[in-house]
Every structure is written in structure tokens, then in C-alpha cells.
């Protein structure tokens, strides 16, 4: 066993007596002499079957933990991504001699914990249960059950988990980062999706196990109230029957190189913040002499402290975020750099500007002496604190053997840290960081996406879905298509005319329309009928009436009326309110027979043609309709082929500031009279509910007359 003793060499200050009761508060106290740090990296014991055992003795608590780590190669899984994860979960499903329920009960009865993962397990218990726990663990490794019903269950759970990734900004960002950083051919660029999970079969899991789960690739790390010989005996007793397998070698994979900055955007409707990840890959293997230099560099740029540049700039100075960090990770295959955080929508672009400029600055100018000193003392302290956990020593021992590090790699850590200069840092920053070739990934609200274009070398945004796949962007509408032309086509079609002249003629004989839609809803086993009647009269008269017929009672849910001068609304449980002020002025504008007839003449309405989108497979012109001075807006989808309005989405905000959206789908336009066309089917989607209604009745007339406009229904 090697033994190394060292002293934290930084700032060994000899301090005078400071135990007086009188103190001068205006000066910070000086530290006592540095404490001694002991690091005992244990030697590795190799059993006959190749299993390597690392024992870290720590007799503070009567507990022992066992960690198995099988270091098999990381390979692409192709159309079966997610396989290793499923394997890791399924491993805990009992053994050939002990079904899962009994296994779980036995573990819990000891108050022990056993959790498995794709590379092995972590288990711990009080010392008195150690022999029994090891017997269970050895069965789990040598003769796992892999029951079919558990496989099916775990697969199903993973499918559910995959679905939930679509609401987690962090998962979405990490999926996209994986794909764009490493490419889909690299094992790190593979993303688990519903279809890759569905391709996995139990047989695949068993094959994976027998090929990869072998003692000659495995480490058993024992930590706790146990001595070395005792541990060696116990492990060889329980794991010597684990059979060796064919040696496995890690392959190398190509990673794409990023040219210029690339912006990737994932739409998360309703997001109040954007998750920003700015990243690129770098070739940095564990144990390389640049690793420590880059760790110090990262500590200054965006390590965990409040005084790191990103945190101090974006949080403490600008208040753009709760936290902004960066990370540089070494890896056997290929490492990466990433920086980012969550930022409120309004400042997302400003936050990106700041992060980019910090990355640029740190790779072009040397850090200050003060920053370097601070980083060194902070990292020295963190190193010392990490030794409180015996698992740290275990990790050091594992890394030493796994990556073939020099024996004194960790013992010399503080000395190597102390020797680093700011020139060293600038040199590695220049060598590794790519401030002009970054992947900029933003998960957020679509409203901010336009502002991101400037960050892309080609001024374009690549839209991705939650799993990093390209999302079809809106296609450009054809030459000559404008919002006005789309609306005009729709109006002509509604009135079955083909020119302005014909439309004028049609409208001169048309002054009133009344429509009733009927919906049937299931209300806890009973069927309720809902009737929605709308009235519209020339030029600006309108009314609506919603009636619900339930088996027990009928009720009027809502009323609206406007006679051209005055009007109001009635909502069930809320009562009547009269139109006043702006709302009243708004009502006075022409509205007959449908709002679209007046978009062009209303200077307060802004129409924007966003492009061609699909609605249930049908190509549609997507229009954004906004009213001046109003934050609410709507999207209208007009079929490219037929010209009909088939979908309308309205986006508004409720009193608590939450985004609320309502969708109406229109289908099956039919003639009412004299060529005037109305959708026979209207479907309302809101709050996760879908209400489908059908046209029950429609009346047209020449004169705009109805009691409804006066509020009499």
C-alpha cells in the first residue's frame, strides 16, 4: 500500500496568538497553519478470474458498501438505443433461484440498499448484514433472472419516461447537444426514442449481458468498516465462480467538427424561460496533463462559485438568471465543453451575447493573478473537503488503475495545481476552446426564436424536436401569395364568388346570419347537450348564446349581444357586464358576417404569412393575426388546396400570467343558401378537452334584425 502525506502548500502562514476576546472586526481574520491532508490510495487486488478489488477502509460507521463497475466498451446501439439502460434496470429483477419479490423483500428486510445500473450495482448495508448481502449480489451478477414480465414492465415505464422528456427543457437540450456535438453515428450522439425502445427484445438484453458482463472487465470497490483481508476473502468466496469472457476492446469513433456558430432551436410552447446550452466537443482524455489546466480555466469561467465570470456577469451583475455555469469534461472517447443556464424570455438573446463574449475573452486574454489565486485556493479547499467522503478515495483508486494514471497522480494533485500559471491557462484555452465554432442550443418559447438568427454563422436557425431530430420547418409560401390574397380567396370561396364585383353584389343582398351548433358531452356517465348560437347583422351587430341541456337541469352558460351602439355579456356565475370604453369602440367596428371580411380594412390588424404548415397532413397557409396594442394573437390555417380556414389557434394570457391557448378546427364546409358556405363541423380544443359540434340550423336574411342584438334570446 502506498502512503503519501502532504501539506496544503498554498499560503502556509504562521499566525500569532489570536485567542484574545478583543477583535478588530474591520479586518478579516488570518488563517491558522494549514492542516495536513492524508491520501492513502489503496493498491488493487486482482482475483483469478480477473476481477479487480479495491478496498478503502473507513471504520467510522459500522457500514460497508460494494460497488461493481464493469468497464465494457461503449458502442453504438443503432436502432436499439436505450438497451444498456433497460439492462441496468432489469438486472435488479431477482435471480435464477430467487424471484424478484423475494429478492426485494430480503434486501429491504436487512435495511440494505441495492441499486443496479448498466455497468453494475451499488449496494450497502450495516456490517452485520454484509455476508448475506454479498450472497445476494453474487447471484445477481452470476445468475440473473431477466424475467419477461419485468422486461415488459420496464420497457413500458421507459416509454412513459421518454414521453415526459418532451416537457423537460433540460432533457431536450441535452438530447440536441448529444446529436449535434457527436453526430448520430457516435455512441454519445445516440438518443433514446420511442421507436428505438420498441426495437429492443429480451434476447438483446441477454446477449448484452453474456458478452459484456464479465469479471475480467470488472472492478469491485469495497468501502467501509471492513479490513482488506476480510474483504478479499469475502469477495473471492462470492465471486470466484463468475466466469471470464473474451477480452473486449473499445473502438474509436469520428466526431463531426463544427464550422462556424450553429443555432439549434427546440420549441417549448408556454415556456417562461429559455434553456441555453453553448457547446462543442474536444479531444481530452482522462489523465492528460491539460486536464487540470482546463479545470482551473473552467473554474474561472463558470465553475460553481458566485465569483466565476459567468455567474458574476449574468447573475450578480445583470440578474438574467438564477445560475449560469460552464463545464469542461475529459472522456475516454471524446470530451466536451458546455456553458449555459436558464434565462427569462426577454433577455435570452442578451444572455447569449454575454456568454459568447466571456468564452471569447477567456480564450484570447490571460486571466488575472487574482482570479488564478482565487481559483487555486478554491480548488484546493474543494479537494480537501471531498476527502470527507471515503467514496472519493475509492474513486481516486479506480481512476488510477482504470486510466493507468501515475501512482502519485492524486497525491500530487495540489502540487500540480499550485504550479499552474496564467500562461498555461491561456495556452490550453487557445488550444481547446472554439469560440467561433460553437453549437448554440436554445429550448424555449417560439416567440424568441427570431432573435437567435444573428448568432448563427449563416443567419439561420435549425429547428429540432425534443429528441434532436430535424423538425420540418415551415415551407415558404409560393410566389405572389400574401396574407391579403389568402384571406380574399377564403372570402370569395365562402360567398361562392370569383371577383370583387360579384362579392359586392352578393353582399348587397345579404345582411343577417344566424347559426346554431350542437355538441354532445359526456358528463360523468350522463350526456349533456350544448347549443351555441351566433347571430351576425350588418354592419356590426352581433350576439351569441350558449345553452346547456343536462338531464337534471338546463342552463344558459353565456350570452353576448351588441346592437350597433350598446351591448354586453352574461357569463354563468359571473353575471352581466356592459361593454365600455375600448371594448365598446372595438365592437362598433364592422364585423358582419365573419371577422375575416374586415381584416384588410382594419388598420389595427396586422396579418403575417408565416409559411406553409401541415394540419393533419393537409398543407395550409399559416397566418399570424395580431391586433395593435394587444399581446394576444392567433394563428389561422388556410388549406393551400381548397382555400378553407381549417384551424384557428388563439393565444392569450390568464389573470395569473399563464399562457392559455384555444384551438378551433373547422371541417366540411356546406352551403346554407345562395352560395354562402359554413363549416358543418366545428371542434373546440381547450384545457385538454375536445368538444366536437355540428351545425344544427342556419338562417340567412337580408335585414339585420333580431331580438338577440338587444340581449333578448
Amino acid at each position, binding site marked *: 500500500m502506498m502512503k503519501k502525506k502532504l501539506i496544503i502548500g498554498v499560503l502556509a502562514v504562521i499566525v500569532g496568538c*489570536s*485567542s*484574545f*476576546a478583543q*477583535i478588530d*472586526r474591520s*479586518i*478579516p481574520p488570518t*488563517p*491558522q*497553519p494549514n*492542516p*495536513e491532508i492524508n491520501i492513502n490510495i489503496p493498491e488493487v487486488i486482482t482475483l483469478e478470474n480477473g476481477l479487480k478489488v479495491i478496498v478503502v477502509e473507513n471504520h467510522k460507521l*459500522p*457500514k460497508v458498501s460494494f460497488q461493481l463497475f464493469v468497464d465494457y466498451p461503449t458502442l453504438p446501439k443503432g436502432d436499439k438505443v436505450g438497451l444498456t439502460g433497460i439492462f441496468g434496470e432489469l438486472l435488479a429483477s431477482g435471480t435464477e433461484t430467487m424471484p*424478484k*419479490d423475494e429478492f*426485494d423483500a430480503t434486501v*429491504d*428486510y436487512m*435495511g440494505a*440498499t441495492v441499486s443496479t445500473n448498466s455497468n453494475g450495482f451499488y449496494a450497502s448495508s*450495516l456490517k452485520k448484514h454484509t455476508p448475506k448481502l454479498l450472497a445476494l449480489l453474487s447471484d445477481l451478477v452470476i445468475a440473473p433472472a431477466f424475467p419477461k414480465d*419485468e422486461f415488459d414492465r420496464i420497457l*413500458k*415505464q421507459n*416509454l412513459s419516461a421518454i414521453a*415526459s422528456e*418532451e*416537457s*423537460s427543457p433540460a432533457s431536450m437540450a441535452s438530447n440536441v447537444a448529444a446529436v449535434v456535438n457527436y453526430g448520430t453515428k457516435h455512441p454519445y450522439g445516440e438518443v433514446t426514442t420511442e421507436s428505438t425502445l420498441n426495437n429492443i427484445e429480451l434476447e438483446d438484453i441477454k446477449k448484452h449481458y453474456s458478452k459484456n458482463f464479465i469479471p475480467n472487465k470488472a472492478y469491485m470497490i469495497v468501502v467501509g468498516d471492513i479490513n482488506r483481508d476480510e474483504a478479499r476473502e469475502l469477495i473471492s468466496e462470492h465471486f470466484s465462480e463468475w466466469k471470464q469472457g473474451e477480452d473486449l476492446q473499445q473502438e474509436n469513433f469520428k466526431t463531426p467538427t463544427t464550422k462556424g456558430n450553429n443555432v439549434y432551436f427546440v420549441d*417549448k410552447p*408556454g*415556456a*417562461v*424561460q429559455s434553456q441555453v446550452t453553448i457547446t462543442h466537443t474536444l479531444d481530452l482524455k482522462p489523465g492528460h496533463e491539460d486536464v487540470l489546466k482546463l479545470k482551473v480555466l473552467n473554474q474561472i469561467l463558470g465553475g460553481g*462559485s458566485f*465569483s466565476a465570470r459567468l455567474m458574476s456577469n449574468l*447573475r*450578480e451583475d445583470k*440578474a*438574467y*438568471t*438564477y445560475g449560469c455555469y460552464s463545464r469542461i469534461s475529459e472522456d475516454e472517447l471524446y470530451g466536451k465543453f458546455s456553458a449555459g443556464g*436558464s434565462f427569462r424570455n426577454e433577455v435570452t438573446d442578451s444572455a447569449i451575447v454575454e456568454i459568447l463574449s466571456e468564452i471569447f475573452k477567456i480564450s484570447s486574454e490571460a486571466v488575472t493573478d487574482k482570479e488564478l489565486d*482565487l481559483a487555486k485556493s*478554491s480548488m*484546493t479547499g*474543494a479537494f*480537501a*473537503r471531498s476527502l*470527507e*467522503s471515503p467514496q472519493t478515495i475509492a474513486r481516486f483508486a479506480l481512476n488510477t488503475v482504470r486510466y493507468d494514471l501515475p501512482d502519485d497522480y492524486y497525491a500530487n494533485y495540489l502540487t500540480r495545481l499550485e504550479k499552474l500559471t496564467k500562461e498555461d491557462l491561456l495556452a490550453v484555452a487557445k488550444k481547446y476552446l472554439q469560440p467561433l465554432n460553437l453549437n448554440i442550443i436554445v429550448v424555449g418559447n417560439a416567440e424568441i426564436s427570431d432573435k437567435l438568427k444573428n448568432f448563427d454563422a449563416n443567419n439561420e436557425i435549425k429547428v429540432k424536436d425534443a429528441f434532436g431530430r430535424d423538425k420540418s420547418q415551415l415551407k415558404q409560401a409560393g410566389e405572389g401569395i400574401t396574407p391579403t390574397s389568402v384571406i380574399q380567396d377564403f372570402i370569395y370561396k365562402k360567398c361562392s364568388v370569383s371577383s370583387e364585383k360579384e362579392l359586392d353584389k352578393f353582399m348587397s343582398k345579404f345582411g343577417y346570419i344566424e347559426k346554431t351548433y350542437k355538441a354532445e358531452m359526456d358528463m360523468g356517465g350522463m350526456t349533456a347537450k350544448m347549443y351555441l348560437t351566433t347571430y351576425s347583422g350588418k354592419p356590426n351587430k352581433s350576439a351569441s348564446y350558449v345553452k346547456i341541456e343536462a338531464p337534471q337541469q338546463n342552463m344558459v352558460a353565456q350570452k353576448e349581444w351588441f346592437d350597433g351602439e350598446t351591448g354586453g355579456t352574461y357569463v354563468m356565475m359571473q353575471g352581466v357586464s356592459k361593454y365600455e370604453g375600448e371594448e365598446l369602440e372595438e365592437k362598433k367596428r364592422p364585423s358582419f358576417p365573419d371577422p375575416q371580411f374586415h381584416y384588410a380594412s382594419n388598420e389595427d390588424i396586422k396579418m403575417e404569412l408565416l409559411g406553409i404548415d401541415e394540419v*393533419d397532413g393537409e398543407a395550409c397557409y399559416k397566418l399570424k393575426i395580431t391586433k395593435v396594442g394587444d399581446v394576444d394573437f392567433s394563428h389561422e390555417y388556410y388549406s393551400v388546396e381548397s382555400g378553407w380556414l381549417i384551424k384557428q389557434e388563439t393565444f392569450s394570457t390568464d389573470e395569473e400570467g399563464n399562457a392559455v391557448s384555444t*384551438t378551433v*378546427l373547422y371541417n366540411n364546409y356546406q352551403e346554407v343558401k345562395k352560395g354562402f358556405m359554413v363549416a358543418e363541423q366545428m371542434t373546440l*380544443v*381547450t*384545457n*385538454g378537452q375536445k368538444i366536437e359540434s355540428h351545425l344544427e340550423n342556419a338562417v340567412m336574411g337580408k335585414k339585420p334584425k333580431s331580438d338577440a342584438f338587444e340581449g333578448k334570446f
Partner: protein
Amino acid sequence: MNIKNWLCAGLIITSFNISAQNKKKIDFVEYDLDNGMHVILHEDHSTPIVAVTVLYHVGSKNEKVGRTGFAHFFEHLMFEGTTNIDRHTYDKFVEKAGGTLNANTSQDRTFYYEILPSNQLEMGLWLESERLLHATVEDIGIETQREVVKEEKRQRMDNQPYGSWMYEIFRRVYKEHPYRWVPIGSMEDLDAAQEEDYVNFYRTFYVPHNATLSIAGDIDIEQTKKWVEAYFGSIPNGEKLDVYRDKEFLSLNEFQKKYADQLKGRENSKDFIGDWNNELPTEAFIKKYFSNVSTKPKEIPRPDIKEGLLKKEIKDTIYDNIQLPAVMMAYRIPEMKHKDHYAVEMLNMLLSQGNSSRFNKTIVEESELAMAAFAFPFPLEDPGIAVVFALANMGIDVGRLDSAMTAEVNKIQKELISDEELTKLKNMIENDFISSNSTMAGIAETLANNHVYMGSADLINTEIDNYMAVTKEDIKRVANTYFINSNRVVLHYLPKEEASN
């Protein structure tokens, strides 16, 4: 009695004996300073580090309506600086010393800590004593931290799936008690904070007798006591502390005005103005002009609202930006100090701790209704809640999941749990109890919590006896007292907007 029962009985006895043997006592000393501050010290030389912590007995339950979120906001401001520590340097002292620092705010307390190399203990004491004596809060800091806190709320609550759960549960479980709002508070209230709010909050709650200093690690008790006395014992309390802070934060003019009645003209004397302008140290200044001012600690206001159990089940649906529906149930449970606390906790363990737990076996594995299901108590100083939560598997109706969860809870009301299950729970507790307290920061925090909430820091050594005393009947009884439908809030989380196709 059959053989299995004999075996169980035998195991119960052995586990009792062994737990008594294995208990490694956490030794500590505790005492009060003259100003009322409570001090707890634990010495352990296994790693050369020390955790310096201060617990202020103030949380969101001490906030006023219209100022929700203030205690947590204030915590952020407490890193801004002090009379002797410039803005943006508080954390740098710690970092430079090789340490780490942070804080958190709950319904009941605000907790600050530094973990330092043990030779930097004095640094931790200086920093914390500065925070207590004369923290400075400038407008620029207020404006910045206000936005930072809002970002924290967006990140943790608004933009996170199910992130609003605490807010949605607590506002329904409580009608009167300030637990009805959550520590993060509301954005409007954060905007509404006025200067006097900061002053009053600091003076009311950041006073020695509302603070517990708990230190654990590689320390020498006697030396530590001396330093504690020097840094914290020198902090006045009562009126004297107010005058001290006014002397440092008010302008001469403001000070003269405020204390005109007391100083009776002396405040305009050449001598007084001279001392002020020549920056006579505050301590000496007070001695000279306020020799008779009281140091008696002022009473700290605490909410005394008592809300009994709920009388009628409250059911609601929350639409959120989520993919998988979830069911969440919250039962009102007694305050942390109540004797039923231990049985309540064990009931929750029975439901969801370990793979053999009832929820995992029935709801997750057998019926496959849930992707995951948890039960955990959320004990608070005043009566708290126990939460039962399950995430539905894809395509599972929340109504079915709800019934399955309720059925498991009901089963505990009707049938005693088995001897084997009780032993399992006790073995788990033994394991958890021995495993806890493995870090210095954890020990310092537990000692402080136990002192403040439970009235005895020594529970760190003895609390396991309270669990071991719980019987099967106790668990059934608390199930029938607290885990009944009329005493709960049930929330169904549903995806906000189903895609239109």
C-alpha cells in the same frame, strides 16, 4: 406461534440489541451566550474541515400577507455585504479560504453555512457574526437579487414539469396559516417590498436570541469557545443592537432626529458631532452616549394560528406543461414535535421506501398504473402535511391511479401491518440512522434543527428510540386519524393542451 413468527421475534430482539451497541454517540457541547444566542459545538478530527452554520428561526411563515417570499428574498440579500465587507466580496472570502458557502430558506427557518478547511474556522465566525451584527443592503443589490429570485422561481417552479406542486398543494391545505403560501412567494409581493420592510425584518428576526450557531468538525472546543465569545458574544441585543445598527446605517441628520428625545439636545453638541465625524468606533460611541440603553432581547412575533384537520376532501385538477398525468394527495399531519410524528413517518416508509414497499409492489409493478409512486412526510414546526404522489404510466387514467393509491392507504386503516413489515421498517430506520450524520455539515444542521424545532439537540443520539417504540397499532391508529379522505387535498395533474390532431 409458528416458526416464522418465532424467527421474526428473534430478529426484532437482535436488531434492538445491535442498534444499541452500534450507536456511535455524537458528542457535543451547547450553551447560550449572554446576548441569548445559542451555541452548539461538535468536535471530530477525521477530516481537516469545519462546518460553521447559523440557523435563524425565521421562514416564510413569519411573513406578512402582501410580502410573501420576503424571508427567502432577504436570504439572498444577506450575501450582499456588511459594514466591513464590501459588496460582492462576502463569498470571495470563503472561496479564497478554500471553502464553500450557501443558504436556504424554508417555511420555518433560514439556514446559512460555510464549510471550510479547519484552519479557517475564524474566517467563518467572522463572516457569520458580520451578517448578524450589521449586514448592509443597498438599492442596487435589492434590484439585482429581486430579478435573480424571480429567475429562481421561473426555473424551479414555472418552467419545471410539476414544479408548481408545492404552491398548488399548500394553498389548498391551509386556509389561514401562513403555510398557505410557499417560501418562494409571489412576484407581485417581491415587487412591493419597501425600504422599511428590510429594516423591520432585519431588526425583528436577525437578532442573537433568534439564532443558533452550530459548528462541527476538526475544532478545539476551548479555542472555539473563545472565538465564539469574541465574534458573537460582543454583539449587543435589544435596544442597544438597534442603536448600533442606526449608528452605522443612518446619516448624522437622521440619527439626530431619531434619538432627539433620548439625547435631549446632546445630539447637537460639538462633542457628539465631533465623535460622529471622527468615526468613533460604534461600541465606544454607544458606551458614551447610550450607556443606559437596554440590551434586553425583544420578543419575536410568531404566528399562533391553529388550523385543525381538514373537514372535507378538496379535489382539483391542475393543467400544466407536462406529458404524463400525475396524482398528488396531501394529508394534514401534526406538528414535528408531536408524538405521532414517528408513526406517520413509518407509515410513509411502508408505502414507498424500498422495492418491496406497498406502492412499488402493487401500483408500479403489479398493476403498472404508475411509472413511480412516492410517499413522504413534509413535517413542519406547526402542523404539516404528508404527500402521496404517483406519476401515471402512459395512457393510464388518473381516476384509476387515484383509486389504487387510496386503496393502499385505506388498507393500512383496516388491517394491522404484519410483524415482518414492522421489523423491516425498524431495520431500515436503524440503517438510515447509522448512515446519517456522516458529514460535518449534516451533523451541524441536525443538531441545530433538533435544538430549534424539537427542543433537544441530543435527539441526534436518541431519536431512534422513538421510532423503535412505534407499534403496529400506532401505525393503524395514525392511518385512521390523519390518512382519511376528509383530511386531504387531491390534485390531478393533466397535460395543458392536447395536440389538436
